[in-house]
């Protein structure tokens, strides 16, 4: 029989130390965040950030205005004289705005990795459901890896929900529509209040999370049950649950992306945002499957996984990277071309203040995988898949960073202890939970009717 994975001390030590170091970083981030407007002013003065971020052409007033949803782009149109920059209250208001951004910063710094790792898990769950629903033959040897990664889904969703809960309790100002004072002065948000209100927001969130986690638990149980008996009815049940889940997922994922990501910028909207977020989570999920598979193979587990399986995963990484770029560009190009003020602020903020990250991520997420993984021989080479995989993971972390940060902290962004610590903390939790979940079950889903096809899977063009 095949050697089942034992939760190694190496991973345990690595993940726990990541968690501890990460916690220190996060705590430092919260400690150094200002708690009053005066403190924020001092921090800004000591940062002398104007020279750092070089944003003085468009100037403070311009993006300060576009970031702060409460005093959003078309401020003068929507008539909120308190917040308008020609009014006498502007100086004070600007300071308050900067205070909100700095106050948000540690929260955003943990929200980005919390979302990112939750979405890796969710992307893998979608990939798994697609394999089940299409009754794919090649990927069965990887089912237990995928089930391990989706083991993080529940905890990951809990982390995100906790942060959202703190937002609703006004510990931070990430979601400005949660602040009744802002809403009262903002006609655009007021018109959306039927959808964007705190109770409904959490009802929806709980529905999504419940749907995903229940599907994950059901399929995991059925999959383990299948190991014991070769009953075909289990296989049929798995198929039905997966097909049904995919319908639920496509709707709930899209709404999740509006709720948890797009509503940080409540004035802005993009109709393909759900797809765009999906493409990002899908490719990072597939990449994670590839990375963990190659890692376990290097530890002499998974002897039934051959280079054709790796080749297929790399093909998915290649293809979905291009799909992601297609959606990224479709969203960008239409908004750039039409140049409608309330839409284009989204990209102005990113290009003015996040230029390097915004375009750098396209290099990491499209150009690099496109060029490196184009060659068929490279796709079966573990070293190159790992290298590209790490680049893709970093790229998509920056992508999520770019979705959250510009709206949450404006031009006050940096990669400080809170950002790095947040990433390390969630990476540590992710690794711990995932490898523990993999060690909890037999390494091969041996009861699947197509298991032989998967074990002997051979792409004809590989030796």
């Amino acid at each position, binding site marked *: 029989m095949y050697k089942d994975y034992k939760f190694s001390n190496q991973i345990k030590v690595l993940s726990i130390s990541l968690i501890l170091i990460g916690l220190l970083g996060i705590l430092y981030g919260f400690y150094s965040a200002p708690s009053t407007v005066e403190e924020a002013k001092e921090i800004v003065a000591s940062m002398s950030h104007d020279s750092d971020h070089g944003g003085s052409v468009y100037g403070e007033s311009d993006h300060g205005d576009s970031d702060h949803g409460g005093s959003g782009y078309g401020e003068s149109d929507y008539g909120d004289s308190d917040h308008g920059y020609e009014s006498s209250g502007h100086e004070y208001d600007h300071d308050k705005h900067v205070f909100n951004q700095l106050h948000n910063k540690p929260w955003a710094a943990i929200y980005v990795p919390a979302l990112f790792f939750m979405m890796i898990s969710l992307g893998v769950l979608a990939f798994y459901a697609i394999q089940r629903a299409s009754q794919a033959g090649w990927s069965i040897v990887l089912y237990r890896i995928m089930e391990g990664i989706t083991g993080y889904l529940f905890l990951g969703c809990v982390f995100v929900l906790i942060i959202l809960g703190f937002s609703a309790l006004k510990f931070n100002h990430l979601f400005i529509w949660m602040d009744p004072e802002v809403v009262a002065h903002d006609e655009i948000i007021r018109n959306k209040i039927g959808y964007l209100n705190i109770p409904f927001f959490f009802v929806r969130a709980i529905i999504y999370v419940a749907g995903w986690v229940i599907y994950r638990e059901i399929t995991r149980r059925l999959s383990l049950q299948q190991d014991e008996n070769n009953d075909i009815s289990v296989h049929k049940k798995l198929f039905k649950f997966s097909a049904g889940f995919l319908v639920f997922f496509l709707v709930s994922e899209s709404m999740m992306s509006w709720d948890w990501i797009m509503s940080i910028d409540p004035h802005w909207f993009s109709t393909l945002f759900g797809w765009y977020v999906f493409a990002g989570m899908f490719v990072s999920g597939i990449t994670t499957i590839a990375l963990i598979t190659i890692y376990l193979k290097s530890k002499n587990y998974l002897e039934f996984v051959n280079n054709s399986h790796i080749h297929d995963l790399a093909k998915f990484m290649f293809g979905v990277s291009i799909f992601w770029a297609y959606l990224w560009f479709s969203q960008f190009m239409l908004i750039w*071309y039409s140049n409608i003020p309330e839409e284009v602020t989204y990209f102005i903020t990113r290009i003015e203040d996040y230029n390097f990250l915004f375009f750098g991520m396209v290099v990491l997420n499209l150009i690099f995988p496109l060029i490196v993984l184009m060659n068929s021989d490279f796709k079966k080479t573990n070293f190159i898949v790992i290298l590209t995989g790490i680049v893709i993971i970093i790229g998509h972390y920056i992508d999520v960073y770019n979705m959250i940060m510009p709206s949450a902290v404006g031009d006050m962004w940096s990669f400080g202890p809170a950002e790095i610590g947040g990433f390390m903390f969630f990476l540590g939790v992710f690794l711990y939970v995932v490898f523990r979940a993999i060690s909890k079950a037999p390494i091969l889903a041996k009861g699947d009717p197509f298991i032989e096809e998967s074990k002997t899977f051979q792409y004809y063009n590989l030796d």
Partner: protein
Amino acid sequence: MSSKSLHVLFDDDDILLDAVKQIVKSKIHINEIYTPFPVHGLDKAMKLKPTNMSIATFIYGCIGFTVAIMMMNYIMIVDWPQNIGGKPSFTLIENIPSFVPIIFEMTVFFAAHLMVITFYLKSKLWPFKKAENPHPSTTDDKFLIDMEIGTNVANTKTMLKKLGAISIDVINKDEDEK
């Protein structure tokens, strides 16, 4: 060189593939194989050189990419400067997002068409060419190996029968050409 050759018919691609491997192993030269559809792995089994078509296609794509950029630059910037989306910058680099779809399409267009044309040229196919196909049923459901007779015709024939050939014809090439 022997003027004789064998035309061996098969009716299944898996059997054909195994037979080809055996024939190659017994060092009998295969001239050509005619199949109704592309059989995966046949080129490997025949020990054919790997194709360079993918490299050629990559180069064609790069040509298309370059041509598209030069074309858009000439049409939209140099020859008749266009105000694109209310952003009258009149430079290539600032208007590049609106050209990306065209650049993409031209890259695909060049890669695809030049690849097909290269394939036709390499396969010696052109309009009104007479078919070289020796047996009409290879366009339907049969597979034909055109091979040398080997050192001993009788031995080769028994081997092929064992490998699952459904018919074996000895062809005299000189007669064939008359």
